[in-house]
């Protein structure tokens, strides 16, 4: 309803209310006023006047007293008679006063209502504008309406949706990127494997049929070829990451078991796990293990990390289980932070890793409906693995 329509309806309502009040109170007020100058009252007072005169005649010694009473009663009678003669003016004045007060209250109430309505219309217009931006693809929407009413809640929902869309777009972009890389890796592996196999067979035959000096060179070449074969296998592993086989597990328990099971796998690292409350999620335990293994490998290969701590908690508001993996290594160099999760990005020398570990870990997290993010670096490194909570546990926070 537009402001003008509301104003028109409000004015009609006010006029009807005042008219009804006028009709009602005009009758009531007159009757109530009449009680004050009721004929019976006047008769009693007149009778009392006569009584005082009679008493004064009967008791002359007290005549002064009776005369004083008489004058007092007579004065009251006079006042009542003056009031009776002014009754119409009094009633009318009272009516105007009350009508005026009622009118003021109604007008003030209507004004407040219309102003509030106007404010609501502006807020709704802002919501519509931001919804239009959302539908056009904007994801940086900040409405800033912090009120706790319905419009405020809708505004916060729009902002939340905008953030979710932005996160999903980033996830889709990453997945698209990784899919391209996986396709490239599959082709590289395919192109490499056939000539590698042939070359390896020919060289082995050559080694068997020639002298020992030549055999040494052949061994060196075979080692390099084996290395190429490993590269092709890594491409294949990256290209053919399986679909997760989900199981319902408590992230905290799983992290504790991982630390116990693999406590000696990285001699330079001390593993530890902390948990606040059960954090139930659907995840593939073996793929989770691959993620943690890749992170532990990176920490150990940095050469300076001595501890790796795993903290598990639940973010009930977002419905996520959060696993924070923190080491005390040298951190991630600034020049690669923006491309950290891309394949073949590595700070290690050639031959010490192909830079696929974090890309694989990221892909695993995304395939689980979550994400792997660099939370903090510099003076240690902290990764955050987010996985969706199991629905019934997300809503209640119970195990």
């Amino acid at each position, binding site marked *: 309803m537009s402001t003008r329509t509301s104003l028109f309806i409000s004015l009609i309502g006010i006029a009807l209310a005042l008219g009804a009040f006028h009709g009602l109170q005009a009758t009531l007020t007159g009757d109530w006023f009449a009680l004050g100058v009721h004929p019976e009252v006047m008769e009693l007072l007149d009778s009392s006047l006569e009584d005082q005169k009679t008493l004064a005649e009967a008791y002359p010694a007290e005549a002064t007293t009776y005369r004083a009473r008489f004058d007092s009663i007579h004065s009251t009678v006079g006042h009542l008679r003056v009031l009776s003669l*002014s009754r119409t003016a009094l009633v009318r*004045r009272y009516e105007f006063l009350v009508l005026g007060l009622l009118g003021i209250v109604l007008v003030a109430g209507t004004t407040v209502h219309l102003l509030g309505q106007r404010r609501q219309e502006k807020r709704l217009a802002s919501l519509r504008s931001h919804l239009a931006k959302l539908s056009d693809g904007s994801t940086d929407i900040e409405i800033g309406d912090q009120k706790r009413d319905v419009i405020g809640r809708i505004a916060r929902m729009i902002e939340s949706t905008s953030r979710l869309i932005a996160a999903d777009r980033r996830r889709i972009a990453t997945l698209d990127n990784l899919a391209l890389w996986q396709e490239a890796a599959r082709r590289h592996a395919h192109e490499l494997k056939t000539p590698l196999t042939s070359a390896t067979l020919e060289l082995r035959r050559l080694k068997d049929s020639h002298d020992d000096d030549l055999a040494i060179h052949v061994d060196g070449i075979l080692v390099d070829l084996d290395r190429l074969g490993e590269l092709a296998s890594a491409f294949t592993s990256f290209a053919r990451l399986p679909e997760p086989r989900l199981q319902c597990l408590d992230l905290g328990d799983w992290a504790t078991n991982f630390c116990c099971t693999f406590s000696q796998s990285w001699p330079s690292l001390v593993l530890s796990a902390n948990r606040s409350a059960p954090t139930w999620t659907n995840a593939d335990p073996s793929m989770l293990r691959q993620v943690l293994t890749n992170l532990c490998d990176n920490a150990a290969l940095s050469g300076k990390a001595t501890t790796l701590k795993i903290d598990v908690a639940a973010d009930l508001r977002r419905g996520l289980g959060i696993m924070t993996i923190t080491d005390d290594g040298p951190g991630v160099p600034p020049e690669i932070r923006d491309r950290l999760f891309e394949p073949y990005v590595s700070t290690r020398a050639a031959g010490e890793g192909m830079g696929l570990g974090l890309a694989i870990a990221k892909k695993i997290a995304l395939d689980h409906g979550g994400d792997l993010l660099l939370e903090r670096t510099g003076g240690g490194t902290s990764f955050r693995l987010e996985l969706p909570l199991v629905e019934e546990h997300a809503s209640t926070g119970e195990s």
Partner: protein
Amino acid sequence: MIGSTLAIVALCGSTLGSPVLAVDGEDLLLSGMPAVLSDERISPKLRSGLTNTFLAQLSESDDGTVARIDLRWEPWDEVFLASVTTSRGFSANVQLASEEDLATWWKALRLPILPAERQVQGKVSLQLTFLPFSASEQQSTRDWLNRSLGGGRSSPATDPNSVGGSSYSRVLHLMVSTSVSRKALVQFEWILTVPDKGDP
């Protein structure tokens, strides 16, 4: 004022008759007052104990009110107290034992209202206004009401030194004090002929 009890009625040449203007020496006299005291709107008020006032106003007079007649029934002594004052300085105070005496006295009134040498000629309009109570009785009633509404304290309207009372009671006092006012209950009007100076 629809429904008002304060009906203003103009009577010209009604069955009550009309007063007469006459020259008596140096004065223009108003006499032959009609029997307005028997009017059904006036006669019940005569024994109210309040001061009933009749104001005579002449249209051609710059002075406004040319005569004032106050009537009051004294209930203790059971007499009517009447006083007359005119713009010519004439005044009289009488006691009358009954309504019949009052009517007789009223009819016999001869009121000098203007000097004879005033240049008033032709026809003039005489208005006689009846007020049911006096200004002092009006104020007394206001004070009485304000005391009653203010819980016994005098109102700001009557006591300039009073600083008490809530906003509500002040509004009520203002409403009451401005509502109790003297308004004419009845008004009569006649068109009279001004006699020449030589006429009796």
